């Protein structure tokens, strides 16, 4: 069952079009990430859902009610939206308790509900404090508790983790995911960080040129992007020329099995090989190549290698786990694993 539906949404600021026909259906109880580079219009989309801005055309439906359409407009305060902006935006003049209780009817503001919400986000006992006495991560959790306290039909989060330190981000992200799962909340989160989108969301909507380019599970989006551009946006990608024949693609990395989901006619194709689909061997079968650069990241290492057979072609990116340090110029043997995804090449 869907909880949020957006169809044919258009929005321009002056002569500059931002959204040019967005269609999206978010299932109830799921967490959807809207992923797009900065300036792609993702925050605008979120603000339209919340009702802070009005679209030029299109409809937005929350639950069964049309909240924005040619003939309807429901004000933000009557949409039952839990909104968590980038900086958390706690009311600086109110205590944590008063912040969480802000959207509740006056008699519930002092009841056990506020305490329960704070417990749920792991901040029991912080009620009397003021926002400036909290760390960034704690502020973000209070903002979340405040949004969830009104039992919203939909929670909207605008880059909620962007202002947190890297080491905090992962733990707060996991906490938020857990809180939503337990409450069965339908949520839409906006982010420019593909890592964040893939790790937190049930489904990811990739926003490009004012439209949803693809709406799929993280696994699908990563392994089977709709085109080569999207493949490079979602992560590191090797785009190779290949020839498809009877379910197998012949590339510079050898003949690889084609992903069954890619229903393609035989012929010239562009093949997507992710860096971690390639492994290095010290000998035996494989494609001989030379290392051109080596970047160490601790948990893994990313290499650029040049196949010997194609010294003028594009370098290939490989991700390996291990501690061996490879100097530029070292010879290596490449072995690629299928299945791989491909698109027709024109």
């Amino acid at each position, binding site marked *: 069952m869907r909880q949020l539906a957006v169809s044919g949404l258009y929005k321009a600021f002056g002569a500059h079009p931002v959204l040019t*026909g967005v269609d999206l259906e978010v299932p109830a109880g799921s967490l959807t990430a809207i992923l797009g580079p900065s300036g792609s219009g993702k925050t605008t989309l979120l603000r339209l859902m919340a009702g*802070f801005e*009005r679209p030029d055309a299109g409809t937005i439906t929350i639950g069964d009610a049309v909240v924005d359409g040619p003939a309807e407009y429901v*004000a933000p*305060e009557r949409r039952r939206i839990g909104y968590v902006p980038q900086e958390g*935006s706690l*009311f600086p003049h109110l205590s944590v308790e008063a912040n969480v209780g*802000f*959207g509740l009817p006056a008699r519930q503001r002092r009841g056990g509900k506020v305490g329960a919400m704070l417990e749920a986000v792991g901040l029991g006992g912080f009620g009397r404090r003021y926002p400036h006495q909290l760390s960034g991560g704690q502020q973000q959790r209070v903002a979340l508790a405040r949004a969830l306290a009104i039992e919203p039909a939909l929670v909207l989060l605008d880059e909620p983790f962007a202002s947190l330190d890297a080491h905090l981000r992962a733990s707060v992200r996991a906490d938020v995911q857990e809180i939503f799962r337990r409450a069965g909340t339908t949520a839409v989160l906006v982010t420019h960080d593909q890592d964040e989108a893939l790790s937190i969301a049930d489904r990811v909507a990739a926003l490009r040129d004012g*439209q949803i380019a693809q709406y799929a599970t993280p696994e699908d989006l990563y392994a089977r992007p709709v085109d080569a551009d999207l493949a490079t946006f979602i992560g590191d990608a090797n785009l190779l020329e290949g020839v498809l024949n009877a379910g197998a693609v012949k590339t510079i990395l050898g003949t690889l099995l084609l992903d069954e989901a890619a229903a393609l006619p035989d012929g010239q194709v562009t093949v997507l090989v992710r860096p971690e689909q390639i492994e290095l061997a010290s000998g035996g079968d494989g494609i001989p190549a030379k290392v051109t650069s080596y970047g160490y990241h601790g948990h893994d290492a990313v290499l650029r290698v040049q196949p010997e057979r194609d010294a003028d072609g594009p370098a290939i990116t490989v991700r390996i786990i291990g501690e061996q340090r490879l100097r530029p110029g070292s010879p290596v043997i490449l072995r690629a694993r299928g299945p791989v995804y491909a698109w027709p090449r024109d």
Partner: protein
Amino acid sequence: MATGTLTERHTEVRAIPARTRRPAALLAVSVLVAAVLALPLVFLLIEAHGAGVSDVNHLVFRPLTGTLLWNTVRLTAVVTLACAVIGTAAAWCVERTDLPGRRAWAVLVVVPLAIPDFVVSFGWNSLWAWMHGFRGAVIVMTLAVYPLVYLPVAASLRGADPGQEEVARSLGSSRLRTFVRITLGQAKGAILGGCLLVALVLLAEYGAFEILGYQTFTTEIFTEFNGYSFAASCALSLVLVVLSLLVLAGEGLLRGRGRVSRSGPMTQRISPPLQLGWTRWPVLALFTALAGLALGVPVASAVYWMVDGQPPLLAGGANVSLLDAAGHTALYGGTAAALATVMAFPVAMLAIRHGSRMRHFLERSTYLVLGMPGVVIAFALSYFTERYAAGFGYGTSALLIACYAIMFFPLALVGVKASLARAPASLDEVARSLGQNRLAVLCRVTLRLAGPGLAAAFCLVFLSAVTELTATLLLIPTGTQTLATQFWSYETNLSYSQAAPFALVMIVVAAVPSYVLGRFFDRSAHAQG
């Protein structure tokens, strides 16, 4: 998405233009406020037209205008320069050196702002008769208004990035060169802003120059108006407005397009204060002299006349009148302050929250008022209501209050804008998403956060209205007196001992809001830094 659907959608857009929301109500109210602000200038032009173009021409181009121009310009130039030097030097010593008792000096140096200029000149002139003419005007006005330069420069030095000075030193620039090129460069905008205020005050001053026997455009307009030479007042007002607008334009040109920017995170890092060493004794002596002359003399003089002067002519009568005058002062000042703050709210809201083109337009309309000296606004309003509006509103307290509200609107706007910057739009949006309608958001969030700043704006206007003399004398309803006008009537009759208590009460009434203001801007500077 097929192109067919796209065209379809666009037709739909044309059918429902209401879907793009603009702050229509806010815009309408702001334009109304701007129109009210433009009224004095419009009235003045109508009056000039009514007086006849050739008559006005004749009155503008006569020898008197030349004398007034010379008097006004040379005084403005000398005092502005003196204030720039004293204000900047004092601010630098307080903010950047290890001057003993810096916190106390920061207050003592600013307090003279609370003493009306005409009280300062009364203080000097009543004690020493040689304090008059050009020399007297330069000394008295410099002592009365240098805090207008000190305040913005001190705030700017406090907020400036010490990193820039350190980089300059590391690049081989000497201490003096660094001070001139970096420190003064960072404070340039603040110094110019302060000088602008000083120049505008000088162009608009009446009472102090009347006491000191120094003739400027403003004193002459006043005299002509009281002598019922309306065409002459009108002609001189036009010249004065042009002069003020020239000052405004000059400040804009000097300021240039450069902006002081601060790179990196806005952490408040303070460079270690400069060690004064033995020079702290002469510096301390200069500060003591400054406070003594600017603050000590006027207060001591008022106390002297009250305690030691001739006995009051009417025993007990002055007391009743003091209470009565204080009541009217508070009533007029309070109402005007509330009105100006309310008028500034929508304009500030539009400037802070919405487009930049609107902001420019509205800031220009504020400039229109800044360029209109109080005497001109009062003259335009009173003459217009008497002559063209069939006396509607003439001689009522409403007209005086409206005049105050228009005159001090720019001050209110500064305060309200600063306060709204503390209530960002994102908080309003969160509140609305939590089920609060616009009115509830305004009461529970915006006004709560902007409250202290709104109070500061109110204080700023109240303080200015309490110490205002020129427009008050022209517009005060018959039979009523404020502290300023009652002081003035005693002073002009040379009843110094009766005038003194009014001066002292005015100083006290004005000192309280100035203290509140100082605290507010001090804290907001720290909060931003």
